[in-house]
């Protein structure tokens, strides 16, 4: 059952990603060059809608959260490396897989690279570990730190996204 839900969810996700055009190299690079904000519109809309439903379900005690720890050292250094690679290759892991399916042959090299990069991490883990322990504050949500309701945070994020979307549309990005 677990496998079936995963497969079906993946097929629907892949379908939406492809229809929205967000799996393209040129969309991802154009977003960070501030020329076409399609992927930002997509990502923020998804995050806000998902946040409303998931926090409702969580407040009702129907689901459990799977938070990743706030490990500042790992997030900052890993994030910088990720950003450099993302700019070069033009794909993140999910979109690279979808791009191959859309016939983008060069995305195969992106995926091979991601596997090599993962292998390097696994083998270098003992040396990288101190970085992961650096500034590790454990699992934290924004609303815990701000000591407020998750729905106030969602409201603020929605307003921020709304302002961004307005600027994007006004400038035809």
């Amino acid at each position: 059952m677990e496998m079936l839900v995963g497969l079906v969810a993946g097929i629907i996700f892949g379908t939406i990603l492809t229809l929205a055009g967000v799996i393209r190299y040129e969309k991802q690079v154009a977003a960070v060059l501030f020329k076409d904000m399609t992927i930002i519109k997509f990502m923020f809309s998804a995050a806000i809608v998902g946040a409303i439903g998931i926090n409702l379900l969580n407040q009702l005690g129907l689901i459990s959260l799977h938070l990743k720890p706030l490990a500042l050292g790992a997030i900052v250094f890993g994030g910088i490396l990720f950003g450099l690679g993302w700019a070069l290759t033009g794909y993140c892991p999910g979109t690279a897989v979808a791009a191959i399916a859309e016939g983008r042959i060069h995305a195969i090299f992106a995926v091979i690279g991601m596997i090599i990069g993962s292998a390097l991490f696994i083998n270098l883990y003992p040396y990288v570990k101190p970085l992961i322990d650096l500034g590790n504050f454990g699992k934290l949500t924004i609303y815990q730190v701000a000591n407020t309701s998750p729905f106030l945070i969602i409201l603020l994020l929605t307003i921020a996204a709304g302002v961004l979307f307005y600027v994007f549309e006004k400038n035809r990005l």
Partner: protein
Amino acid sequence: MKETRLNPYIGGVLVGLLAIAVVYLTTMLIGDTKFFGTSTTFAKIAAAIQKTITPNISNEYFNKLNLKVDWQMMFVLGIFIGALITSLLNRSFKLELVPPIFMDKFGSNFTLRAILALLGGIFVGFGARLADGCPSGHGLSGMMQLSLGSLIAVIVFFSSAILFANIIYRR
């Protein structure tokens, strides 16, 4: 005929609804809440390949990776299948060796594109493991849970990509 396109806001809303459905259904059906993610699958593939080459590999991280086929692997396989069927149906499928923007800056040399895609992929793979997630795990699932670490990760991913893309593609 022009390919069918979906407005990105509507696409995003649909993905948000899909995530809610997945979180609820997995909790009800299998008793474990599942969130979107993709990059751990790359690490599992790497570990599986390595295990066939150096069978006695063992360290704290390797041992934590469960090499059995799991939810996320099926999810990633689904992304491939969904993208393949959709791109064939909506005519966006195209065999492409060098993408636009890259071509404008570096020309149509496939070898150069392959090398840079591979090199970038290595940074992405390593960085995603170190940051413990990618734009699906942090950007979608983490943000939906209002995780502070994920919010910071997304800010760093984009800031770094903006900086490097403007260096790489500046004309």
